[in-house]
């Protein structure tokens, strides 16, 4: 068992009187394909926002790659190696597909703005490297054909793929995917599952994903954490979670015994 890449201890956030995330504990081992599920409003996206620094917890600790990250800027956390996608797609709509991916490399740029303006050799070499790696990422995600299109004009499923491509450009150790399959047709979903697996197997990226498509989650994830009303109610391998009475109750209400749709 490897060292957890992301560790949450007693993570709590309150919005007014509502405790959106309540003492959440999480240990995400490096190289795992993990899932975070739960009914609507369970606090899944809030968890992602906490991990990536977009909102600050009221209580609790977060450790990423051995370093405490509570209170850091989102850009700093990203530079440490945590990337994410957004549930409500947030691409740079007027920028081309290629530029969206290139933006992802900017956080790792070493040249300062003056050497960029003066096109000093160091910057030119970096820019060339970024262009090449952006080409590779577009190839991996199957978006090469669309590289010059404005991101806002892509089909829904392609926009989701571009979100992943852009996140990959930041060279992440851990990638958080917020409902990557939402709005995709079955064929696209199959392609997505293959892509996510390749991220882990070939690039060695740890993946944590939120998804409502249960078939997708159950087939893909090795470890699943279930949230309800901000609390972790179950965790384990897919087949264990599926049979867990607390999970069934959270999804279907008390007294039903059908199990989670699979």
């Amino acid at each position, binding site marked *: 068992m490897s060292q957890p890449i992301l560790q949450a201890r007693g993570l709590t956030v309150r919005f007014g009187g509502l405790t959106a995330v309540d003492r959440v504990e999480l240990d995400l081992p490096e190289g795992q394909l993990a899932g975070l599920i739960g009914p609507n409003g369970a606090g899944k996206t809030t968890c992602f926002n906490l991990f990536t620094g977009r909102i600050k917890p009221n209580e609790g600790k977060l450790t990423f790659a051995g370093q405490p990250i509570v209170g850091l800027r989102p850009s700093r956390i990203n530079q440490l190696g945590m990337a994410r996608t957004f549930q409500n797609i947030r691409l*740079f709509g007027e*920028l081309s597909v290629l530029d969206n991916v290139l933006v992802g490399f900017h956080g790792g740029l070493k040249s300062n*703005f003056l050497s960029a303006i003066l096109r000093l050799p160091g910057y030119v070499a970096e820019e060339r490297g970024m262009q090449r790696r952006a080409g590779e990422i577009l190839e991996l995600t199957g978006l090469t054909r669309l590289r010059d299109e404005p991101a806002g004009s892509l089909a829904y499923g392609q926009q989701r793929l571009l979100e992943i491509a852009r996140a990959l450009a930041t060279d992440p150790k851990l990638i958080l995917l917020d409902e990557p399959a939402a709005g995709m047709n079955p064929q696209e979903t199959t392609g997505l599952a293959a892509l996510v697996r390749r991220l882990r197997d070939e690039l060695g990226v740890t993946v944590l994903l939120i998804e409502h498509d249960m078939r997708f989650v159950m087939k893909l994830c090795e470890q699943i954490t279930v949230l309800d009303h901000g609390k972790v109610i179950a965790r384990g391998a897919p087949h264990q979670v599926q049979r867990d009475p607390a999970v069934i109750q959270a999804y279907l209400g008390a007294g039903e015994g059908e199990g989670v749709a699979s």
Partner: protein
Amino acid sequence: MPRNPHEKFGLTALLKPGGLLSPGALPPAHQTRRRDTMLTIGACLLAALGLWLLEGHASGYVVHLTCVGAIFATLAVSYNLINGVTGQFSLEPNAFVACGAYVTALLTLSPAEKEASFILEPLIWPLSAFSIPLLPALVIAGLLTALMAFLMGFPVFRVRGDYLAIVTLGFGEVIRVVANNAQSVTNGPLGLKGIPHITNLWWSWGLLAVCLFFIVRLVHSSYGRALMAIREDETAAEAMGINAFWHKMLAFTLSAFFEGVAGGLLAHLITTISPSLFTFFLTFNLLIIIVVGGLGSTTGAVLGAFLFTYGGEWLRVVEEPMQLMGLDIPGIPGMRMVIFSLILVGVMIFLRRGILGRHDFSWRWLLASLGLGRGSKA
């Protein structure tokens, strides 16, 4: 795209993919870099020849107007960097122009001239005791203005959107009020007179060239992509590792530097400055220029500035008495502003996103449109 459903008229529509003027996919920029650099140098030489001819043959009035045009183009391009490219709607350039104008003028005015101007309260030492040439004065003015922007950025960029506009508007007014009241430095409402008339075509166009060099290259670098990413979606940009605060500061400070230098040149063109010159109306005019040109387009900012400068003068015709179909129409003062406003309304109705939208000039686009170069279907 869903965000601009009205973009079906005019140049913007023609420039869109599939539009009449759209040459289709352009070759990647890095393939044509050397050719483009040569073309740019050639165009600069041609422009220099044009300026030389203008200086020798055109009237003083046209030369003056062409200088004003270049200075406004510099201001517009700088202002567009923060407002259009980075998408931070700010309203303070009048403060930066004022700062640059006052600093430069105070540095270049001779001690005798200063003593003659400051009649109510003498100018504080050491400013009263020396003067320096224009070029170092401009650099100092630019750096001081940039420093002011840098310090201003810390409180200002804590807010966004409408709030940012209001806060920066406040700062702009503060500077004007300071200029009005700090008599021992600015000579108060009397202003500074007798500033040497040094700015000519070469100074003003030289500054425009330097400004374009820096800003166009910044916009077309990784930093420019980061700035545009902040405009498109700040949350996503932060999540992709871009420190939005420092990048806004970069755009803000760089634009302030050029606005300060342009202010200095403006002072040495009109030779008299006073606080009333740097009211919100200056900012307002610049805002019109960049919105009409196309917010976010550097080419649009330059185009807008020259249209604004020359257009305002050409429209003087409508204020003169004229005979129309046998009717004697007396000259109506202020008529040109009415016509000007109507034109603005027209532009904003038919070209929602300004004349150029967010399109920018590039040699690749021009050559491909003309059916030349690697961009065409050969």
